[in-house]
């Protein structure tokens, strides 16, 4: 069992935007859970377990580890609910806890070196566009749901962890750049840079499946 401490501390105070209905409902569940309402906490789990499990799978790429991360993240959140001050969304907070837990799993697996989502791995090479080919107007129509799911998941899984994590939070889960930065403890420029690389890499991978028939891909940059 890892002995490293995991940050469950709330984020630094920031300007709080007006709450959406969903955010208000979430906050109400947190308040009820904080005073011991187990059903309220179960509702929070049901809201986010799918996303947290996917995030954990994205980082660890191991089902057993992802399940451990899921459990540890929610149990830690439950234990430390009094530290959640509502300056950010509960989801952002639980993502941060889950990311820390997932990184600890990776560190244990690769015990000879530290693992961080903030590693400087950009070489500049991954923003080079190698393939240009127009896509069909509705590329997803070429495949059935199952095939499409496999193509999209396969493309994400082939990215480096930092890219797939940023892309998933930002473009699949719909977090803002600021929320993604907070959840991953990255700077905003770091999130933007990784998001650009993730989007370009995915675009290139999907071009192989979605390009308009008859068009040849070619490089230009």
């Amino acid at each position, binding site marked *: 069992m890892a002995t490293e401490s995991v940050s469950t501390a709330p984020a630094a105070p920031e300007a709080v935007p007006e709450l959406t209905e969903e955010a208000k409902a979430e906050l109400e569940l947190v308040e009820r859970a904080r005073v011991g309402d187990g059903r309220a906490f179960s509702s929070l789990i049901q809201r986010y377990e799918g996303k947290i499990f996917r995030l954990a799978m994205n980082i660890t790429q191991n089902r057993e580890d992802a399940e451990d991360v*899921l459990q540890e993240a929610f149990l830690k959140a*439950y234990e430390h609910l009094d530290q959640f001050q509502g300056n950010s969304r509960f989801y952002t907070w639980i993502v941060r806890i889950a990311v820390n837990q997932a990184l600890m799993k990776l560190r244990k697996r690769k015990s000879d070196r530290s693992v961080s989502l903030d590693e400087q791995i950009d070489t500049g090479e991954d923003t080079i566009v190698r393939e240009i*080919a127009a896509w069909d107007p509705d*590329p997803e129509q070429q495949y059935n749901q199952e095939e499409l799911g496999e193509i999209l998941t396969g493309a*994400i899984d082939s990215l480096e962890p930092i890219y797939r994590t940023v892309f998933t939070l930002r*473009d699949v889960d719909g977090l803002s750049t600021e929320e993604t930065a907070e959840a991953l403890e990255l700077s905003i420029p770091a999130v933007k840079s990784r998001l650009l690389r993730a*989007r370009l890499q995915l675009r290139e991978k999907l071009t192989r499946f979605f390009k308009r028939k008859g068009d040849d891909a070619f490089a230009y940059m």
Partner: protein
Amino acid sequence: MLTCKEFLSELSDFLDESTDREVRAKLEKHVAECPNCWVVCDTTRKTISVYKGMKECSIPGDVHSRLMAALEKRMAARPGA
């Protein structure tokens, strides 16, 4: 006139509509005049769109059951529970 490399470096902000008006005008001009960047821009936009429409996967039933069982155990062990 922007270079293709400069256009690419701003592509994410362009797609997220988070650039200021002056930069946006330059990017729009470039993408209208450069067929390659138009394709990259269009296919990157479609990439984001196709993932946004991806069905959220539910977690396996046994994983959910074990999570809830672990939570119940923790709740029961909590002082005052």
